[in-house]
């Protein structure tokens, strides 16, 4: 059965780029435009096996989203990858503290992304 990946990014380009890449590699993809919308989807019953989130977003950024996500029942151990243009080490450290599984700096090519996902999601 195909694994489900949730992509959170305020950029439509990023959402479509990641969705296309992941779907072509056999994953099922759910998209959200910011942290608030993503949390709403998760509360509505979407159960992703992995979450890829941007850091700097309107309404709710990636770091705050991670905090809220870990507080949700059933999402404590879901792997979260931060995919961002952010280069500050403090943000990277904060993401790690908030439960991120990995940090990827944009742009990331399809093969690299799939390689990381396979490392994070065994059997994917």
């Amino acid at each position, binding site marked *: 059965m195909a694994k489900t990946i949730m992509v959170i*990014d305020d*950029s*439509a*380009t*990023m959402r*479509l*780029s990641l969705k*296309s*890449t992941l*779907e*072509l590699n056999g994953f099922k993809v759910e998209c959200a435009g910011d942290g608030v919308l993503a949390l709403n989807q998760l509360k509505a019953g979407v159960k992703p096996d992995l979450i890829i989130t941007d*850091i*700097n977003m309107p309404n709710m950024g990636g770091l705050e989203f991670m905090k809220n996500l870990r507080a949700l029942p059933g999402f404590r151990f879901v792997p979260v990858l931060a995919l*961002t*243009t*952010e*280069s*500050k*080490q403090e943000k*990277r450290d904060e993401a*790690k503290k908030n439960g*991120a*599984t*990995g*940090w*990827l*700096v*944009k*742009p*990331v*090519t*399809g*093969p*690299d*992304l799939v390689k*990381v996902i396979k*490392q*994070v999601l065994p059997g994917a």
Partner: protein
Amino acid sequence: MKINLGYPGKLFDTPEPPTLLVKKIVAAIFFVSLCAYLVYPLLHRWIGLPSRIEIALTGAVASIQVLVGAMYVFRRHLSIAFAALDTHNKCSAQAKCIRENYHQTVSDLSQYNAVLGSQLQEASIQTETAILGVIGRMANIHHQTCSQIDRIGSSSERSMELIAVTQDHIHKNQQVIQALNAFSGSQVEQLTDNLLRIEKLSEGMEQMRPMVEDISAIADRTKLLALNAKIEAARAGEAGRGFAVVAEEVRNLSVQTHKLAQDIADRITRVAGQALAETENARQKMASNEDAEKFKNMAGNMSSVEGRFKAAATHLEDIIKGVEGANRVIVEEVSIVLGEIQFQDILRQRLEQVNTGLEFQSGFAKQVQLWLEGSAELPATGLSAHLDELKEKYVMQEQRTTHNSVLGVHTPACGSNNKIELF
């Protein structure tokens, strides 16, 4: 929209000292005094003015002379005073001009920045729309190529199966040919054996020929004996009549025997001749070995077909592998391009920062204008301070590098340089 950012004329011209004017005034007063001195005796003689008027005129002339003298003595101070007055008037006009122009400039600048900001935003939206289209098409190409790879894979499997089946058939055909060749060989051996037997039979028949000749000779002698018996019977007369009949029958029998022997000899000759002819014919055919040659040719043709088929199959396999390899490269390239397209998000973020800067610039210029008009305080944050704020808001190391390179400042490293890091 054309915006005039220039200012009319010089803003701070230093006025020339009005020494020429002073000189002109002094000269005029001197001329008036001289005229008064000349005209005064004439007036006194011709008109006979009363003494009060004369005193008044004298006083006036004396006052004018004192004034002229004072102006001459203080001409430098007067010159400076006139210059200051002139400068003041000019500065007031220029300040008015500056205020009016600055007001216009601020108004134009806001509009200018709004236009630039809008253009940047529009360009960003257009890029995004175009990129979304490109991603869609790329995804389609990726999908089509993957399907093609699957089809080629399936076709390759079928081709391999077909090649295997055909090679199996060729192998079986070769086995059949070999069997037929072996069968042909055994047939030749059997035929050789048969020929030998026929030859032996023929020889046997030839060996019968003397026996037939013996029978014929016996028949001839019997015939002669019957003739002698008949003669003896004739001699015996009536008593030998019965013997004569027997002798006649014996003669007839010998004649028939002779005929029969001759007939057998002819038949033996004919059959033996035919056997020899057929044997010879068979030997010649065996010597030519036509069937074996045909089988050999067939086997050779079959091997040649197999060789060509193998070559064609290998070539086809190479082509399929080449197409499959090229398609895999396309899939990988498309996958990489799908990632590279993320530059649009990076560009958007950088443009947003530029837009923020332009908006601040407009607000700053408005505040400065209000301050010049005296209706507001000087903006708390200057452009330099805002540049620092802008720098703090950067998220990409490239933004900081560009910023610092313009200001001639070294950009420190940003911690981990790993583009991908798993915690």
